[in-house]
């Protein structure tokens, strides 16, 4: 038979696992009934939890990196990296809680303990029946009254993963904190800015790894040089015009790695779907493939104000009135890959490439027929329904993504090989 003592803590387990408050004596009665029929204790507990709507008690040990937000019945073996006491007030009552970091071979997480388990920094412990919450977009381990802690031999865990969140550049999103990134500095420039009334030197540029590139800003002099390969720990990600940007400062660590790591040729401009780009809010030097579905008005041969560079409407500048316009070429087009769409902006060089005509030739042709719209029609003929591959920088606002095209490349329409490959794949 089950001892009275254990039985109470089993009831605690069940109650903790339930989404709603259920009367303890009712649960006790049911549990006793199952046990009297010889149902094993674990099964009886899980049956009750299922009946009253809760999350089943997980009894297998979990690696920290697999722990998600809002899990219950967690069973973890970990090392306490740091632990600090803290006084808090809960419903008018003072309580002492503990917080810090714990880690295993797979990850490091923050934790909060609502009870004094007499654990110290460096202890290796087995935690049974903990739960997880979300804290700063990461799962946090919580130890409650119903959690059990057992001390283990410290050699159980040899090394703990130090980094809180190692990220690839493609996965960085504005708002992320405490990230660790390894990348090569592709460019670097010094700037003097005024922050809080003081002049400060900052270092910024573009860094890249095998998944992509990202602008960065360092608020501290880490003695960086162009082409250094570095690991930044405890950096954070800001959004600039919607697109992610990595920032590091005096709270961050920068470690220089061997310069033959992450060779330049491995730092590519990776192909992304437009939906991912929309979700990221943009990106530096990214590549997308899509089809042009619309050419937006004021594409083609345009005239700009010599004072402010704005595009003239009927020979007039909104600010400077009637001026002698400077001719230019550009295309604004909707590029769509079936997952999302963006506004692609092609400058004069790219437009000349698409048209196969120089600006002067465009001017001449338009003057001959006295119709500047002719160039726009030519553009429409050349690129609507045309699959393109473009690279460039993407930014976003409430109206969507804007993509400044650096390179454009017409995709080959000969798809015989790809079609055969796909057919083979389907027949397997």
């Amino acid at each position: 038979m089950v001892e009275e003592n254990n039985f109470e803590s089993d009831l605690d387990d069940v109650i903790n696992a339930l989404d709603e408050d259920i009367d303890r004596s009712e649960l006790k009665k049911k549990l006793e009934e199952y046990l009297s029929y010889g149902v094993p204790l674990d099964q009886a507990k899980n049956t009750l939890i299922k009946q009253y709507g809760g999350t089943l008690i997980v009894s297998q040990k979990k690696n920290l990196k697999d722990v998600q937000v809002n899990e219950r019945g967690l069973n973890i073996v970990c090392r306490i990296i740091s632990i600090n006491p803290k006084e808090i007030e809960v419903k008018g009552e003072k309580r002492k809680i503990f917080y810090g970091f714990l880690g295993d071979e797979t990850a490091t997480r923050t934790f909060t303990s609502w009870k004094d388990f007499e654990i110290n920094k460096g202890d290796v412990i087995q935690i049974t029946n903990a739960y997880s919450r979300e804290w700063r977009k990461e799962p946090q381990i919580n130890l409650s009254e119903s959690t059990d802690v057992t001390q283990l031999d410290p050699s159980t865990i040899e090394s703990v993963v130090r980094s809180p969140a190692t990220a690839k550049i493609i996965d960085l999103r504005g708002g992320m904190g405490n990230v660790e990134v390894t990348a090569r500095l592709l460019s670097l420039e010094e700037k003097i800015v005024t922050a809080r009334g003081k002049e400060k030197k900052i270092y910024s540029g573009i860094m890249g790894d095998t998944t992509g590139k990202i602008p960065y800003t360092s608020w501290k002099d880490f003695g960086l040089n162009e082409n250094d390969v570095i690991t930044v720990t405890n950096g954070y990600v800001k959004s600039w015009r919607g697109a992610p940007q990595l920032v590091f400062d005096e709270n961050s660590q920068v470690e220089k790695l061997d310069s033959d790591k992450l060779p330049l040729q491995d730092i590519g401009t990776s192909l992304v779907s437009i939906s991912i780009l929309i979700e990221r809010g943009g990106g530096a030097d990214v590549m997308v493939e899509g089809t042009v579905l619309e050419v937006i008005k004021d594409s083609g041969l345009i005239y700009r104000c010599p004072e402010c560079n704005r595009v003239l409407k009927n020979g007039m500048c909104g600010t400077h009135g009637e001026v002698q316009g400077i001719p230019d070429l550009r295309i604004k087009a909707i590029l769509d890959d079936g997952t999302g769409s963006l506004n692609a902006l092609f400058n004069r060089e790219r437009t000349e490439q698409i048209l196969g005509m120089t600006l002067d030739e465009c001017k001449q042709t338009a003057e001959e027929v006295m119709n500047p719209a002719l160039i726009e029609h030519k553009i429409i003929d050349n690129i609507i329904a045309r699959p393109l591959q473009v690279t460039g920088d993407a930014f976003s606002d409430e109206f969507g993504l804007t993509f400044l095209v650096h390179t454009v490349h017409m995709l080959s329409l000969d798809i015989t090989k790809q079609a055969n490959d796909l057919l083979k794949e389907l027949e397997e």
Partner: protein
Amino acid sequence: MMREQAWRLFAGEYNETTCKVEGEGDRDPSYVVTPLGAKVNRLYVVGVLTNVEDLSSEGEMLRAHVSDPTGVFVLYAGQYQPELLDYLAHMDTPSYVALVGKSRTYEPEEGTIYVSVRPELIKEVDASVRNYWILEACRHTKKRIEAVVEADNMTSPSVDELKSLGYDTALAEGIIASLSHYGKIDIDSYYSLIKEALASLKTGDINTHSHTQEIEEKILGLIAKNEGDEGIPWEKLVKKGIEAKFDKEVIEKTLESLMDKGLIYEPQLGRLKTA
């Protein structure tokens, strides 16, 4: 507001759609959700413009058909699109066209929904653009099939769980809406759809959908052989077709197509006869 993406999908999937999602606010877009979870407000098709007909005397309403290897998109263009109407009215048929359009629905009675397309842009293109689109539509269709399979394997499928597998929000939402509306999806028929489309690429020619044509000829033969004077009952023909190793759905589609072409007719309800 963000521009809606243009889904790549075949008529064979689009025309099966019976699920509509209305936007909540005045300015929120409405969608149709296909059986494979494409949540379509806008779509992009490259196919063959087979005919354009005038539905009004003044030419202010046109109906057109754009055919792909799996079926036919029905287009309605109205008076608010004068340039497009004019362009469409003067197009040669058949010709290859690229079409961007919005999804539209027509509900003649409660519970019956027909989908069509209101074109935003039509442009004549060449065969290579069409072939590229077929490959693209195959890839996107395959991705949606895989997403449906993933969702089917989940104990409680959710948008978040699909997103965590790497599917984007629009598709994840579409898949969940599709599951609750259509229930179990016949995955295999959509795999055959892709194969049929790919096969059409190999032949390269637009006007002979050899595979479809072959089935049509065989079914037509079956009817001719068994019709007698009064025609063969529908069910009996379907049974014979299944005996001849055709899918029930394929048979029914073929019958519809033969009927549309005027090659067979119903002398009385439920009986089929060759014309």
